[in-house]
């Protein structure tokens, strides 16, 4: 089955983080999605750490200069 990819570049500013959390929350434990963005989304990582501590893993697949790809996985319970 192909991957879950969310290109957040197209989403209006106010909807960006809610859309990302919605996608994360829809994952089954052990699943992951790839977030595509036009800047380093590290503020989002801090928000994940504050709101979903220990529930996610975060690994960069591509780090600029024009595109960032991050694999965000949901930990198995």
């Amino acid at each position, binding site marked *: 089955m192909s991957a879950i990819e969310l*290109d957040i570049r197209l989403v209006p*500013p*106010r909807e960006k983080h809610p859309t990302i959390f919605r*996608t994360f929350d*829809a994952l089954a434990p052990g699943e992951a999605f790839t977030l595509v963005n036009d*800047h380093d989304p590290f*503020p989002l990582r801090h*928000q994940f750490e504050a709101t979903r501590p220990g529930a996610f893993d975060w690994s960069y697949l591509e780090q600029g200069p024009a595109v960032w790809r991050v694999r965000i996985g949901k930990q198995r319970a």
Partner: protein
Amino acid sequence: MTLALSTAVAQDLTPAGLAAFDAACRARGLDGLELEVDASGDMASGAIEAQARQLQSSGARVLALRSERLVRSCVPALARAAAVLAAPVSVPARAVAVHALPELAEAFADAGARLLLSHATDLDQIVALLPAIAEHSTLGLAWDVRPASEDLEGRGAVLLAAREQLGLVRLYGGGPEQREQDGRGVGPLLHELAMTRYTGPIVLHPSTLAVLPRWRRWLSSRGSAGCGAGSPLTRDGDFELDVRDVEPKDRLETILGGYRALEPGATLTLTVDHDPICMYHTLNATEPEGTFTFRKLDDGPEVWHAEVTKLSAKA
């Protein structure tokens, strides 16, 4: 998933002009372009194929082709152009008659290419197309999404019906038009596309001709540091920073730059069009404990204000 920009935004459609357009797309992090062609006359067919061969040899990244019209005499050349570029062609569903679809499918099969019929966010239109399309593997659907003028409430049913045949999504918006499309269903649509594991091309296209100049500025602006609309206040070295007109990708640096410029005891007042709580979490993680305070002055739904005060060094 690949992201392309329509050559409707390009000013110069010569080979050199399209090469420069492709380079600008690359600098913007886009994966390629959608080539607009005009398959509407005998004169056109030779030109389309020649342009495709030229682009292919120049290494331009053509992810899709689109024609507003399709006349029968152009079909073989258009299919060959698509095969040369290894990219699907889309035409509006209303531009072709349902009874012509078997012949079109065969022409595209002969060339080794795929023809996508573009439709609106309209379940009835898709249901009418599906039986004719499902019989031919060289035919598929291209979804034209127009957040400015369409109700995207029906997107879930459209996605369910079209998903198997969906070869392309074209968004009339995004880019410099993101902010106007707030609350129009783009975020939920992208979420649903992701969850159905759609990884095909998404093409960005200006929503109207009137916004073309903004798209051209957006494409050529690349990533210069957004300076924002910051203005220092005279009193106590406080800053006000309205980042709503700063591109999302440049906002964090703008805000952090404003914060770093504060003298201890001074306050940065932020105006943003999204919940600034992510800034609080970022400062919490990056700044030493107890060196700032963060206070939301209001809480949306369209505009948020927050105050960040850098605390005086402890005596």
